[in-house]
């Protein structure tokens, strides 16, 4: 008499269930892949499209947790820079500067030639409203902003605005005023009116010997001083 052992039966059941799930997954995944990439064959193993989609949908908490997870799982060095930078900017925009700073700092360590990252870190260190932020970090903001501005031959109003804010953050108000005036002239020359307006407002603060601490900005919007617009 033909006998089927329990082990055989379990193996065969597992096989049928496993294969059925795989075929279903492949079919559904194939159609989603076509919709997502909008061309055939949609080749490319990347989570970038998913991250961008979360960004577009403004699901900031989900985006932050996905970026954090990617930092743990994706060990590619070039991606690490982008991930730290994006997470830093996202946290910064949510008003979580103290959490953003380590990520922005790491992005600068990974790519010290990235002027936008240099400037963003300097801006965050200079304008973070948290009184707990150590003075040495505010001093570092001056150094970083100076380095970024020098790379652009001191011709970028946004980066000069960052440098002015950094000077003010460490109490160097005279330097802050002269730097902000240079930034204002350049902004006016480049007809960057909204930026010029912002610099003018900050200039008043520096003249009154007050630093500029900013409010959180919506993620994805250009930096208040427009420093990333030319990168």
């Amino acid at each position, binding site marked *: 008499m033909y006998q089927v052992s329990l082990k055989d039966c379990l193996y065969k059941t597992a096989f049928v269930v496993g294969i059925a799930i795989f075929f279903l997954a492949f079919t559904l995944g*194939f159609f989603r892949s076509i919709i997502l990439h909008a061309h055939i064959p949609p080749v490319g193993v990347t989570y970038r499209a998913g991250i961008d989609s979360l960004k577009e949908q403004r699901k900031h908490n989900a985006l932050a947790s996905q970026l954090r997870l990617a930092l743990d799982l994706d060990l590619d060095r070039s991606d690490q820079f982008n991930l730290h930078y994006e997470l830093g900017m996202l946290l910064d925009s949510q008003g979580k500067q103290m959490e953003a700073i380590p990520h922005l700092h790491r992005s600068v360590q990974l790519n010290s030639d990235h002027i936008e990252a240099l400037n963003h870190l300097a801006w965050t260190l200079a304008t973070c409203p948290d009184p707990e932020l150590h003075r040495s970090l505010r001093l570092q903001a001056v150094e970083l902003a100076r380095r970024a501005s020098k790379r652009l031959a001191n011709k970028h109003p946004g980066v000069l605005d960052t440098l002015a804010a950094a000077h003010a953050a460490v109490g160097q108000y005279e330097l802050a005023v002269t730097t902000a005036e240079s930034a204002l002239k350049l902004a006016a020359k480049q007809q960057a009116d909204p930026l010029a307006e912002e610099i003018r407002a900050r200039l008043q603060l520096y003249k009154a010997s007050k630093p500029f601490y900013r409010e959180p900005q919506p993620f994805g919007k250009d930096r208040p001083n427009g420093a990333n617009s030319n990168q």
Partner: protein
Amino acid sequence: MAKSALRNLPASLLGQSFVHPIFDYMLIGGGLSLVVGACVLPNPGAALTFSAASLPYIILLSNSAHFAASTVRLYTKPGAFHSLPFVTMALPLVSLVLLTTCMRFAGTLGPHLTSLYLTWSPYHYAAQAYGLAVMYCYRSGCLLSAGNKKLLWWMSMLPFFYVFATGSNVGLHWIDMAGWLDDRPSIDAFLKTFQFALPLVGIAGTVYLWRNISLHQGRPMPLISVLLLITNAVWWFILRPGNAFVWATIFHGIQYLAIVVFFHVKDQMGRPNQRHSATYHVLWFYGACVVLGYALFNCFPQAYVLAGFGPVESVLLVVAAINIHHFFVDAYIWRLKRADANRAIVDTGATAPL
């Protein structure tokens, strides 16, 4: 007699090829990676550098297809369901359950799954280099003594030890979750010395091995066996870790596909009543690998996203799981039992069947 031995020397050095010496040395031996590396690495902006647009297709045709190849090979290997019931029938569902569990707890389990696959990868490549080196020795009539075989294994494994000891987030640094190693300057100094010394040990050991075999085994170790050790060593010793993983996977994939296709064709041509040509079987096998590779790496992660998981874990953990599944399946499908038709391929003095 001495004259005859001298005349035979080049052939014994060249080894017994599967297809043609150029094909074997370039694709299976990994010579192509050295040629491409020599062209690309000194000048990263050169035309041979893979562009961002072409890289996904190169990866699909080599890397993804190679990962799928072990599965295609498993299910087309004669008698596999009978001889490997767990691997053929239960493993897919077990893998699926384990992967989904890791996805569910991606923050906790995900990094370990990733580190496991990155630690296992260099071992897998080293083991393949060893297996192929031994296979070419046997095919070429170079019988290895137990001592030489052991030494060949150690030489093959050096790149794995190198990555295991020095790679970040893999091997030692993965096991050392508490960061104990980072706070010990003496250990750091030791690892740096180890990192410096290991390639030198590899060169000296390989030269010693080759000389020892030539002197005591009657025939020299074929140069393709040496090339296999060299290419694997170059991938891990010379390239930066990030590049090493990309290069090793692409060229290991080509190497793997070349050899697995050969075994598949041998099996299919040996089937009773088979009516197709070898070319048909080659194209069928490779086509199946590309389609399955595409389904696994491109469609499968999308299915997880549809099921509600995040894009990051859906892509990265699926990649890690496919790698581990491949390593696991590979550990079984290359075991050639006495009755296996492919046993002739590795046996001494076997002629190339194609």
